């Protein structure tokens, strides 16, 4: 029996490929399996090859699998594009409708199953997906009754007949495939899972839930791949706490509206991807200069320009750290898992208010859109810290002098009062200003205010919880692998394989990318014989940041992938061996 299984369904976009994967994985999630999904799709609604690869395991899995056990094909292209991933024991099940052709150079099993025909006989060809799910169950030896609850949930509102028909489609697919396979245990049968209820969500869900738990009341956003799910979730949930989402006319409006709302005293944010972030840069500068809290989520996708809108990349890093003209204090946090996406988003709102700075929550497409099993989220870890927010009790001043909103303080953070509060009147401007917010071009004031702003975040690397995730057991490693965001899963798996070959590997994943936690990572770099920075971009952006902060330009090498697809463990294993 396999401990884990990799399953992929593919076909033309708009044919229900996504829902096939959804139903399959929902049922497995309920049985207590750990899942890790990755969708390959195009920037179009109908047509074009799409596939959904889902890894199923009895243990936590955090990366796209190297190979494939079962390929469900609704067209020949799915077979042609994906069959090389199948290992020798793998199985292709293909719809008879398109007269599938088995590739000559594969040892994988091949079964043509009348998905469409059976579905049509049951009433509608739309149910071909259900037939395919049933056939899969026969291969992995899964009792189809587990699908009943899921099918009821999805089709229940369409009536009992629809539920019954869909269940029948699953059963028929199961039976047909069982007959084909004959007696005996399938080598792809899954061992039973623990039956635990676990969350199954995309990274964007976790980020949106984090925003809600952080007390957000207004999200201002413009739709974009792969960020839109964050606004879509909050459109449903914010009204329950009296708030709302405003779909703005563009990303500039989204960022500036969020700034206005934060200035007005609430927690507000926006989320976008590279093109939207480019438009927001001036607003981010305003947030930095006026010390108005702002949280922006950047779900990275393939750039530059429109780039690869539906593909994985991590090429916004430099833009997020350095973007906006002039110099501002800014914080960039890069969660690596959905769990971290939740906690880090909560923390982003706290940091934004405590330090009165813009905070970028950096994600990437694989994390944002991949649907994963998520460990229980601990609400007791959610705290709401609003820093030096002043809402009442300001001593009255007879002379109408302004409140010192930008008072020069030791830690650089000044008391922040919001409109409506008596005695708190001050001015806010993106022009250089004095302690009351009034414009000032005095050199002494400029220096005092610039220093004050910049020193606010100096201590953050020492305060931020776990700025570097470390899996580092070796005092002297042969290789230190460093990454950020979603590559961590593939790195960990690569590490296990390298270790099994006797290579000592440490792993460090940067969670606080700016201000950079140099002191935290430096000992690992110093003690490693080789260092490789794994990232989905062409120029080694994180490697540059590390070299700039920690030194060791000769020792630090890059493992890069920028073809639009995520790292699989074998990529990292192979590249690592070349470096050692």
């Amino acid at each position: 029996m396999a401990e884990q299984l990799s399953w992929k369904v593919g076909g033309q976009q708009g044919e229900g490929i996504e829902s096939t994967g959804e139903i399959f994985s929902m049922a497995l999630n309920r049985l207590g399996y750990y899942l890790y999904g990755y969708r390959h799709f195009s920037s179009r609604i109908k047509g074009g090859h799409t596939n959904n690869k889902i890894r199923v395991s009895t243990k936590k899995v955090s990366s796209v699998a190297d190979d494939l056990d079962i390929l469900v094909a609704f067209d020949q292209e799915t077979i042609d594009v994906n069959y090389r991933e199948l290992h020798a024991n793998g199985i292709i099940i293909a719809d008879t409708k398109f007269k599938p052709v088995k590739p000559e150079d594969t040892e994988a099993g091949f079964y043509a199953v009348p998905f469409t025909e059976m579905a049509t006989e049951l009433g509608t060809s739309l149910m071909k997906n259900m037939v395919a799910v049933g056939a899969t169950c026969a291969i992995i030896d899964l009792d189809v009754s587990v699908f009943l609850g899921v099918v009821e949930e999805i089709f229940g509102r369409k009536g009992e007949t629809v539920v019954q028909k869909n269940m029948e489609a699953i059963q028929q697919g199961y039976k047909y495939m069982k007959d084909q396979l004959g007696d005996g245990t399938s080598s792809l049968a899954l061992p039973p899972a623990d039956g635990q209820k676990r969350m199954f969500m995309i990274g964007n869900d976790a980020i949106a839930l984090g925003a809600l738990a952080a007390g957000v009341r207004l999200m201002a956003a413009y739709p974009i791949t792969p960020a839109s799910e964050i606004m879509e979730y909050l459109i449903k949930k914010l009204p329950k706490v009296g708030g709302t989402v405003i779909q703005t006319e563009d990303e500039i409006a989204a960022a500036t509206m969020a700034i206005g709302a934060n200035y007005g005293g609430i927690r507000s944010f926006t989320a976008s991807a590279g093109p939207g972030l480019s438009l927001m840069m001036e607003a981010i500068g305003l947030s930095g200069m006026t010390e108005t809290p702002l949280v922006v989520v950047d779900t990275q996708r393939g750039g530059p320009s429109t780039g690869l809108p539906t593909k994985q990349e991590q090429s916004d890093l430099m833009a997020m750290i350095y973007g906006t003209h002039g110099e501002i204090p800014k914080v960039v946090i890069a969660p690596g898992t959905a769990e971290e996406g939740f906690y880090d988003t909560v923390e982003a709102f706290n940091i934004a208010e405590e330090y009165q700075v813009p905070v970028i929550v950096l994600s990437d497409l694989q994390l944002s859109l991949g649907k994963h099993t998520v460990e229980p989220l601990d609400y007791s870890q959610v705290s709401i810290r609003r820093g030096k927010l002043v809402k009442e009790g300001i001593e009255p001043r007879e002379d109408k002098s302004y409140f010192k909103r930008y008072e020069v303080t030791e830690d650089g953070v000044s008391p922040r009062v919001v409109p409506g509060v008596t005695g708190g009147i001050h001015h806010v401007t993106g022009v250089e200003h004095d302690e009351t917010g009034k414009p000032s071009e005095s050199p002494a004031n400029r220096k005092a205010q610039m220093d004050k702003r910049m020193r606010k975040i100096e201590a953050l690397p020492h305060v931020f919880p776990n700025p570097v995730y470390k899996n580092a057991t070796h005092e002297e490693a042969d290789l230190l692998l460093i990454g950020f965001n979603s590559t961590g899963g593939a790195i960990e798996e690569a590490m296990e394989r390298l270790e099994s070959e006797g290579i000592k590997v440490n792993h460090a994943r940067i969670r606080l990318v700016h201000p950079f936690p140099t002191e935290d990572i430096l000992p690992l770099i110093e003690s490693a014989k080789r260092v490789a920075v794994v990232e989905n971009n062409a120029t080694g952006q994180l490697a540059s940041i590390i070299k700039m902060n920690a030194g060791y330009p000769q020792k630090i090498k890059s493992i890069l992938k920028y073809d639009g697809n995520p790292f699989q463990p074998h990529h990292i294993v192979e590249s690592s061996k070349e470096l050692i």
Partner: protein
Amino acid sequence: MATATTATFKDFRNSVKPNWCPGCGDFSVQAAIQRAAANVGLTPEKLAVISGIGCSGRISGYINSYGLHGIHGRALPIAQGVKMANKDLTVIASGGDGDGFAIGMGHTIHAMRRNIDLTYIVMDNQIYGLTKGQTSPRSAAGFKTKSTPLGAIEQTLSPMQLAVTTGATFVAQSFSTDLKDLTAIIEAGINHKGFSIINVFSPCVTYNKVNTYDWFKENLTKLSTIEGYDPSDRQAAMNTLMQHNDLVTGIIYQDTERPSYQELVEGYAETPLADADLDLGEETFKQLVEEFM
């Protein structure tokens, strides 16, 4: 602590000396806002003036109230965010014609469609002043500036016609020297439940030698002098604007029926969001988590 419940226009004055040129129309706009704020019963703490960039954008720093001087063209989205955060505040957005009708035009149109309850005051001098005299979307055809030395060849934009067609619920125009009328219009704009746009002809004495105080006095028609003018008649509003080449002052159009954005938002809190307790509560969180299981 005691909170002042009434204020006079003097309470809205601060000690900052505006950096506008002597004779600039913006001085009167500043005075009108201060008077209108006092007349509608505001105290300085309850007013937020959000402004853009340009000569007129400095206005938020010259009024004793909460004020935010943002980035070029974005006063409106910032102001809308402020109002969404605290519905008890009176929010005035302001800026020049370049700010609102060139770089910020997209926001102007959508703010009118959205109808969040705030008042937008444009100081329209038909030129770029702070950058020392370039053409604006409001400049007349043939108008010679540093950027149009042979005369502007683009069509002049009509913000008032645009406002009427875009669905703005309060559309008014005024002239900076008519302090009494301007003050009354700003009061009406503040009292209007929804988005109000007030375009104020505010002459630039330094760079616009065509659209001068005298020119406006000669060419403007007060809507109050047009017999039977009914600002609730949208068609008449358009006709009047076209007949007078937009050179009218007064309330051009007002729709008192349409609810403001905040009244239409599902579930929007009745008390200011800024006062909300941010803790979601463990029970609610648990329910949200279970939806993903």
